[in-house]
């Protein structure tokens, strides 16, 4: 991590909050926590474009927790909405109708349903056009707002409302998680990163770095969901940290497509530690342990990191 960062310790993050309390979101929500840290670093001059999802509910007319502007769009078209706002701001500034110092940063916030499934084409279009915007995807690995149905971000083995473990299908969700990072990376955007609310300094440094670039600046955040994943609300941050330390959620960035990991765990924690604390994976342990699925998940993580160690550290393990 760059040593010349403005953010050296947690105390450097105690700046003004732009998301205040009192939202109707669940207690212990990982998405609002990510947004709060993200917004702190981004500053107050932001207009958020929000596709339908859990976080949409934070703004419940006439109430808003945001000290910045907010626009709501349908699930498929948040980046298209961002394009409209960006263009309008550019034209107004060019014509001198608003002063240049009143420029706003345009940021998109969507859940994994909009980013991985329904809005994939519009974000691809916006990245392709080189739209100057931020994209924050809070990934809770299912359609949490409607009752936790699977999305293409759902990992192997997860129980969701539409992939319950049954005698015929004991492992729950059968498909693997879509690799949105690689899909977006194929567009070679100026800045792309994965973040976790358990690592706030990492978030701050990544946004600081992204701010230097003009064009799409994309962030995918893991956001643990207490009711959907099935853990106590106090565990949200620990769950995000476990995801990073078991290696299932790598923290990395890609500048014009060049990947670099910002946190390389020297020794991976066994993924079991992460899985067995969540009710959505409970059927893998109870009543009988499904060692095969757990081994598949662990094997994939190890394979991923072996490649990372080889490429970034020049080690063969």
């Amino acid at each position, binding site marked *: 991590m760059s040593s010349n960062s403005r953010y050296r310790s947690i105390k450097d993050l105690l700046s003004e909050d732009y998301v205040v309390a*009192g939202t109707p979101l669940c207690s212990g929500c990982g998405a609002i926590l990510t947004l709060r840290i993200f917004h702190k670093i981004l500053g107050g001059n932001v207009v958020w474009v929000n596709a339908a999802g859990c976080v949409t*509910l934070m703004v419940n007319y006439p109430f808003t927790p945001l000290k910045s502007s907010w626009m709501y769009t349908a699930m498929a078209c948040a980046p298209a909405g961002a394009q409209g706002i960006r263009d309008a701001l550019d034209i107004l500034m060019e014509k001198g109708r608003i002063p240049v110092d009143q420029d706003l940063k345009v940021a998109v916030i969507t859940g994994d349903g909009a980013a991985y499934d329904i809005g994939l084409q519009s974000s691809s279009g916006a990245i392709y056009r080189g739209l100057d915007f931020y994209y924050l995807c809070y990934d809770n690995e299912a359609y949490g707002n409607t009752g936790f149905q699977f999305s293409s971000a759902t990992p192997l083995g997860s129980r969701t409302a539409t992939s319950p473990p049954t005698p015929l299908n004991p492992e729950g969700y059968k498909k693997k998680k879509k690799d949105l990072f690689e899909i977006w990376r194929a567009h070679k955007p100026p800045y792309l990163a994965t973040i976790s609310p358990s690592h706030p300094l990492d978030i701050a440094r990544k946004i600081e770095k992204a701010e230097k670039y003009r064009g799409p600046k994309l962030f995918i955040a893991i956001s643990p969901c207490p009711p959907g994943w099935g853990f106590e609300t106090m565990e949200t*941050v620990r769950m995000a940290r476990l995801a990073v330390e078991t290696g299932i959620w790598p923290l990395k960035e890609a500048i014009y497509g060049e990947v670099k990991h910002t946190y390389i765990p020297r020794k991976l924690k066994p993924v079991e530690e992460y899985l067995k604390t969540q009710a959505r994976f409970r059927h893998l342990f109870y*009543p009988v342990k499904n060692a095969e699925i757990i081994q598949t998940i662990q094997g994939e993580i190890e394979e991923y990191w072996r490649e990372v160690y080889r490429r970034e550290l020049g080690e063969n393990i």
Partner: protein
Amino acid sequence: MLIYARFHGRGGHGVKTASRILGTSAHLEGFHVQDFPIYGAERRGAPVTAFTKISDDPLKLLDRGYIFNPNLVLVSDESLLSDPIANPLSGIQTGGTAFINTTKNIDHLQIKHDNINIVVGDVTGLSLRYVGRVVLSTGIGAIATKLTGMIRWNSLEEAVKEELQEIGIKGELLEKNILLAKTCFELVYPAPLPPPSQQKKYKIVELNWTHPPYNIPEIWNIGNTKIRKTGSWRVFKPLINLEKCTRCSLCVIYCPEGVIEMVDNSLVVDYDNCKGCLICFNECPVKAISYVREAEAV
């Protein structure tokens, strides 16, 4: 015989399941039943309402829709009594019964309604003792079943098994819930439930007058959710021991609501809005944060 039961609670505590447990046990006892919940766009912790209608005569259950004139009300969180949106006792039938989940004595509840029977009990405490978590579905469902005075334990046990298995609870956890149901079933006595008047009031709740800044839409307002006071969602209250605290400020960063603030090298918690998720308790590296049940907090 007609029972209109209305359940008031907070999302995630099991109000919907409680109404289903009452409905299913009455159905197993041979009655005709409807049960259904309503909840808005809001999430875990926000007020939720569920309804159960029970009758021995199917012709009395021809109507559909919300219950405005219940003869049995179950309030799973006493903080709802003062919530103008939930307003749990609105429209309750004269002579009807209300159960309130609280650790307080009846005299300390300050309920304005006359001519209704109030029953109190600490279901949250029992659920923590028997199940280890705040799950009110079984407890409130069992109490509602007993208050009707016409459903036997066997039907309730069957209903608890059926409803909890449907949401994926089995094994040891199910056994604990049945024990909780048994305890709650024995906690109260059948209550008087005069038949509800058929007079219709097309309002879910009566909205009281509120101070203008609360109810006038103002689109230029920013950061105004603070006035909604989500602090009433809390079951546990975090307490910071400032002598043990090293001011590392991790809790300030990790609080999803941003209610912990560093002021003059001291930590201030906005308890009006703290939802009680306890992430601060879990993340404190020196264990300077503890928690107590809201009911026991001073």
